[in-house]
């Protein structure tokens, strides 16, 4: 040991000088890595959560579109047939739109002749999603209606079991097929 070293230590001055700085740097790096890893994991998990929320929102859009089209179909008033036809077409596309347009003239003639008035309602829990895959979906809508026409002496209840097939066209869900079961 060199007596001229004032602290009397056996280690070199260089090693004593570097050890605290190296330890601080390593500890800081470790903390940064841990925080970065934790933040990355949280961001990924948040992405999963948002994807689930987006899927649920898309389901709600589909159900709302099918419900609206069912009510449009069921809201018959022989005095306002132009509005009725426009409302149904606004929610239609593909084969359903073509079929509706093909039968529009005979339908309006029939409704006018019978002075048909339908007041629809959808019962609680009367709408269900069969499936949704990308931009295609199938929905069941149970529709109740009170029907008045020239062949009924008083308003009569009717029950309809609709099965809609919908397509997402330019961001809007439209009915491409309709089955009445």
């Amino acid at each position, binding site marked *: 040991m060199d007596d*001229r070293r004032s602290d009397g230590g056996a280690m070199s001055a260089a090693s004593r000088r570097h050890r605290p700085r190296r330890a601080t740097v390593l500890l800081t790096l470790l903390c940064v890595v841990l925080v970065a890893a934790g933040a990355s994991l*949280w961001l990924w998990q948040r992405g999963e959560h948002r994807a689930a929320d987006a899927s649920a929102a898309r389901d709600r859009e589909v159900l709302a579109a099918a419900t609206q089209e069912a009510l449009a179909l069921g809201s018959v008033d022989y005095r306002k047939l132009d509005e009725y036809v426009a409302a149904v077409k606004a929610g239609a596309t593909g084969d359903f739109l073509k079929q509706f347009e093909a039968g529009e003239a005979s339908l309006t003639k029939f409704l006018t002749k019978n002075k048909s008035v339908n007041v629809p309602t959808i*019962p609680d829990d009367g709408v269900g999603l069969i499936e949704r895959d990308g931009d295609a979906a199938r929905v069941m809508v149970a529709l109740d209606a009170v029907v008045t026409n020239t062949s009924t002496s008083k308003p009569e209840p009717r029950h309809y079991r609709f099965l809609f097939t919908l397509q997402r066209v330019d961001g809007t869900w439209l009915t491409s097929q309709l089955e009445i079961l």
Partner: protein
Amino acid sequence: MSRTISRAHATKDCPFCAEPIRIAAIACRFCNRDLPAAGEAAVGVPAEVEVDLAEQPTPATTDDRSAPEHTLKHARTTARRWSVLLIATVAILAVVGVLEYHDWRAATQAQQATAAGKTVRATAPDLVEALLSYRHDQFDEDLAAAEKSMTTEFREKYRGTVEPIRADAIEQRRTQTAEVLAVSVISQAPQRVELLLYVDSTSTSGKSEDSRIIQAVLRAVMVTDDDGSWRLDDLTVPTS
């Protein structure tokens, strides 16, 4: 004013950190830098050195108590910085952990709900058809078989409504066959799924030989226990 002190206690200021160090030192005990010039200078330093007390601190202030105190103070500062760094890291990780748990739980529940909906939609039609189908000559056996798929609460509720059906079935020698045409999900959760079903029931009377078809819309609620089996908890007609 001056006094004579031994070379061992004579001090000078470190050229790097300006801390007082001994003249004979070859390295500074405060900043740990090497002082090669100090070692060479120490060779020619006389055993006794006359120093100006106005400039020199007294031996009492340059004894070994100042060096450990300064080193201890430096060590405490470093420890304090490391503590702050570690506490900040733990705090950040704790907050991130809570946020991550919240998002993980929400995403997991959504996935479990979707899986439950798919499972129930595939299995419920058979269960409902079995419940609504019967033969007059084995009505009780058919009912007992159907009740195995019910929750206890629904079984009690259903038994209270089935007696008129049973009486008519036996009286009319009726056979009823139910068919589920379509099934969809109204709502879904990991352990509870609500379904909307379109059901056609064809009922034939052996007594009058008449046949009728009942077109029904039904809402079914299915629940599961920890054992993973799904049971019918409610069956109603949706009303406006």
